[in-house]
């Protein structure tokens, strides 16, 4: 541990946010900037009979109105991941047009863009665009989408399947083991659709400069370089070196700002057409209708146990909705980010998951905080608890029985799962023991018993999750269908005065990279944190990068920076040796200086830096300068894990659930900044609790969204949650230089089943074994009646 690593250093980015001086995209105003608004479909599925724009074009302040009949009609946004059918047939990849031309495929799909001098004028003119639709029957449920005769989302194929997929052991073998199992627990449920709801709505400004024939796109994205690549190479076919993408302050992402959205490409195209900058900021209604949603799995699963409660086999079939088009990462979510976690933390010998991924008449579904792993964890942690309940076992006991034994990934080998991956290191029982201790498990059970006698319904729920993050080894994801590498880039530029500028391809939208990255850079170089500046979010500053998602920033992005620091120190040692007239191997680097071992002869980092840029007295043959860029491609995913425990009380009269305690013991490997890790966990837990108790996107039979505002989409408010009790175990990641695993999604992955398990536990004596999320009072009350 150095001066900063492992310390709760306060965040340097806070001052600007706290003073209202953050610069989010919508805060930017450019000279001559026009404003855009969209004409969006009020139907989920419809034929477009005609679009009349004449009145809108004549309206006050209108600069232009474009429809798919204009030049933009030929373009579409790409999908970044290919998952082919089990039988080898290629994934069905419909064109995802910037504007709908003949047919509407989801509610809120854009038909026209109106550009005007002011936002008010643009909004007014939207109402003057006349669109004639012929409404068609729609399907929004993924399972129903695969039924015979379901309305087709894309007419070019005979059914709605985008692809199907399976992973694990041979299905017949798994089925045979289930036949022979002592007990089989079954579950059938829906992992409901969620709206990510980053508090900052998506916002874009495209600015075409006619003189330089260059574009600048200001965008609220989690990965500016990826957007540039997708925009240039796939969406519009414009030269990548002529496009600058800037994404400075971003108000939360949770996955929803990874993807390349149609509006980004359309604004970029339109900006050249009108020769002016154009801004569009989504309003909240549009966000519900057009931001990629999360989850939406319809699940049927069976887990077999032997008489001691050891899991013998696990078989699952899922329908995972893709929405109307394939969003950037969508095919990866219910497959490689999901099926590969079906081992959980258990020694299950036989596992099979079968996925069918249909199109539905809904907004695309893609990664949302956890992306596939929350869905896997929910299933595993619910079904093992349900199994315990059915067999009369304690939910902690059944977990201890099935845990993979501890392994550090160094002395003991990594754990090879039945579902392709090899876990890096883990000590699952330790986290559960710590969680139970924090709760006072034995005492709680006594209290619960007493409370029941008084008619008070208390329950405890345990979830012992694992997740795979730090995505990802490029060769592995390439083999799995990714159309990009998932390395990261870190450049360390030492300035002549010894001050350090770090350029990272990772992107901070709340994670605190400006602080955490500076902590370890300062420590590794032995210099003050104030001498280190972290730059991100601008493709003209940062050479390249893959952005932030999948809890990868520190594990992958941090490692890239470490690689560059190693190169800096290696070259610096050559310069130091020359100046000190010593052999390189006689030097040691400590506290910001090279010292000849056993002497007091030393030279500081600053002096070496200056020498590198003023190379008058300099090693022969060595290039001047001290500036290195590195690509880090991880050798494996990282596997954070932990135990989450929820305590609830259910109102016996109304079914209302009160979350009384939440305990989170997380192992995210080494910790750079405990304050920030705790904050990530607390926030993740809140989102996971949101899924368990409150959140769901509901489409009605006609494909209308009935939860399209904060009046109907319930998200956790301050009075829905207790304080989150956090602790940690530390099992370092053996394969990256910082030993870190990632903390961004763990909270959201582990928490949801803990809460549901707790509610089921509270009602167990009434014979309740399962309840459908979200656990609305009505749903819980009804479960109690049956």
């Amino acid at each position, binding site marked *: 541990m150095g001066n900063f690593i492992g310390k709760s250093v306060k965040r340097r980015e806070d001052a600007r946010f706290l003073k209202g001086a953050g610069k989010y995209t919508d805060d930017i105003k450019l000279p001559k900037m026009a404003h855009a608004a969209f004409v969006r479909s009020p139907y989920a599925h419809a034929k477009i009979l005609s679009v009349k724009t004449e009145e809108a074009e004549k309206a006050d302040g209108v600069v232009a109105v474009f429809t798919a009949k204009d030049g933009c009609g030929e373009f579409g946004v790409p999908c970044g991941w290919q998952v082919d059918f089990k039988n080898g047939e290629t994934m069905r990849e419909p064109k995802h047009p910037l504007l709908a031309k003949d047919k509407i495929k989801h509610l809120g799909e854009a038909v026209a863009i109106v550009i005007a001098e002011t*936002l*008010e004028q643009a*909004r*007014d003119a939207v*109402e003057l665009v006349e669109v004639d639709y012929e409404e068609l029957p729609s399907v929004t449920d993924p399972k129903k989408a695969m039924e015979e005769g379901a309305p087709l989302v894309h007419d070019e194929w005979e059914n709605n399947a985008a692809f199907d997929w399976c992973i694990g052991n041979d299905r017949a073998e798994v089925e045979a083991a289930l036949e022979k199992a002592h007990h089989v627990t079954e579950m059938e449920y829906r992992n409901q659709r969620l709206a990510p709801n980053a508090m900052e709505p998506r916002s874009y400004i495209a600015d075409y400069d006619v003189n330089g024939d260059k574009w600048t796109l200001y965008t609220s994205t989690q990965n500016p370089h990826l957007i540039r690549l997708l925009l240039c190479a796939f969406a519009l076919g414009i030269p990548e070196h002529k496009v600058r993408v800037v994404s400075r302050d971003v108000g939360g992402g949770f996955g929803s700002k990874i993807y390349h959205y149609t509006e980004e490409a359309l604004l970029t195209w339109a900006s050249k057409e009108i020769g002016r900058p154009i801004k569009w900021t989504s*309003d*909240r*209604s549009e966000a519900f209708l057009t931001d990629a949603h999360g989850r939406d799995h319809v699940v049927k699963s069976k887990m077999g146990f032997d008489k001691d409660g050891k899991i013998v086999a696990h078989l699952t079939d899922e329908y995972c909705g893709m929405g109307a088009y394939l969003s950037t990462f969508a095919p990866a979510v219910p497959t490689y980010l999901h099926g590969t976690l079906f081992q959980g933390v258990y020694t299950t010998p036989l596992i099979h998951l079968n996925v069918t991924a249909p199109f539905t008449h809904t907004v695309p579904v893609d990664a949302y905080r956890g992306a596939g792993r929350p869905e896997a964890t929910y299933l595993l942690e619910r079904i093992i608890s349900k199994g315990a309940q059915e067999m009369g076992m304690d939910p902690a006991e059944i977990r201890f029985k099935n845990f993979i034994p501890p392994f550090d990934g160094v002395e003991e080998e990594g754990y090879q799962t039945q579902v392709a991956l090899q876990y890096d290191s883990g000590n699952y029982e330790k986290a559960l023991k710590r969680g139970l201790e924090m709760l006072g498990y034995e005492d709680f059970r006594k209290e619960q018993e007493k409370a029941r006698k008084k008619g008070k319904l208390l329950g405890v729920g345990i979830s012992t999750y694992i997740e795979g993050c730090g995505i990802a080894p490029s060769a592995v994801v390439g083999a799995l269908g990714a159309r990009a590498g998932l390395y990261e880039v870190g450049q360390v530029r030492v300035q002549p005065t010894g001050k350090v500028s770090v350029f990272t391809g990772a992107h901070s939208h709340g994670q605190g990279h400006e602080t955490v990255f500076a902590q370890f850079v300062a420590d590794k170089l032995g210099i003050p944190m104030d001498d280190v500046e972290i730059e991100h979010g601008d493709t003209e500053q940062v050479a390249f990068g893959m952005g932030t998602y999948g809890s990868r920033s520190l594990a992958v992005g941090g490692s890239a920076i470490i690689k560059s620091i190693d190169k800096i120190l290696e070259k610096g040692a050559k310069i130091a040796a020359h100046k000190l007239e010593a052999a390189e191997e006689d030097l040691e680097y400590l506290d910001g200086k090279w010292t000849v071992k056993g002497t007091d002869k030393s030279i500081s980092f600053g002096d070496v830096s200056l020498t590198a840029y003023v190379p008058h007295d300099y090693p022969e043959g060595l290039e001047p300068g001290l500036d290195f860029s590195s690509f880090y491609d991880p050798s494996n995913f990282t596997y954070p894990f932990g135990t989450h425990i929820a305590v609830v009380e259910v109102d016996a*009269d*109304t079914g*209302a659930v009160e979350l009384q305690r939440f305990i989170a013991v997380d192992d995210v490997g080494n910790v750079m900044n405990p304050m920030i890790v705790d904050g990530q966990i607390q926030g993740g837990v809140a989102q996971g609790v949101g899924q368990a108790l*409150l959140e769901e996107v*509901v489409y009605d039979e006609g494909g209308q969204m*009935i*939860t399209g505002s*904060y*009046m*109907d*989409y*319930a*998200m956790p408010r301050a009075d*829905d949650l207790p304080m989150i009790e956090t602790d940690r175990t530390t099992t370092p990641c053996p394969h990256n230089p910082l030993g870190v695993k990632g903390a961004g999604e763990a909270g959201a992955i582990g928490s949801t089943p803990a809460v549901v398990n707790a509610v089921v536990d509270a009602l167990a004596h009434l014979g309740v074994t399962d309840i459908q999320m979200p656990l*609305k*009072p*009505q749903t819980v*009350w*009804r479960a109690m009646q049956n």
Partner: protein
Amino acid sequence: MIPAKFDYIKASSVNEAVNLLDEHGFDAKILSGGHSLIPAMKLRLNRPEILIDISGISGLNTIEETGSEVIIGANCTHTQIVNSEVIYKNVNILKQAAETVGDVQVRNRGTIGGSLAHADPSADYPAVVLACEAKIEVEGKKGKRTIDAKDFFVGIFTTALEDDELITAVRFPKVAHGNYQKFYQSASRFAVVGVAVVHDGSGVKVGVTGVADTPYRATAVEKAYKNNNDSDAAEHAVDGVEVMEDHFADAEYRTHLAKVMVKRALEA
């Protein structure tokens, strides 16, 4: 989100506001706190051509006590009601309801007159107004009149106000013993069910909101309670009422909640 264009006039007297209403009829809307109206206008669900801002009219934002009543000006905010000593002492049930409205920012702007005139079927005040048998003072082209609470709520978002009338005050009889129980809708925090029970010398008066498209007096409960003086009367909470449904509460569950909330309010 931006409303359609409209004109804005700040009225300096009730008379001026009434004249403007009369002149513009259906195209005009009264603006007080605006916390129901403005969001609806932004979503372009509501597009008045003229807004008549009554927030500056003097005398509409006072809370007065007389011998038997508390008179609350239409422009009194929920916060004023929460903080009023007079209401605390004399119509405590109204304070209880006001505290559950929205959040602190909304309570700082939203007004009792605005809420009643808007007549959202899930709003809190209607239950209290009904149970207290409050009187709604209105003024229009034909002059002033008083509308009994029971006659005020006509249907979903519909009241007994004429097009040229606005609420000027609400008169609450003093209430010694009353209780408001609310089951929150988890997103909007409006009432899935809100029940106001006022005990008077001879029995109870029960106002219910959130259950039907129009708030109502649960007279069947009142009758049963009077006869037996016990909380089993709550079983009659939705007698004769068509119960609303939404994805938070279907009719069966809402009916159950209504009974639970009535029982709790009766027992409080």
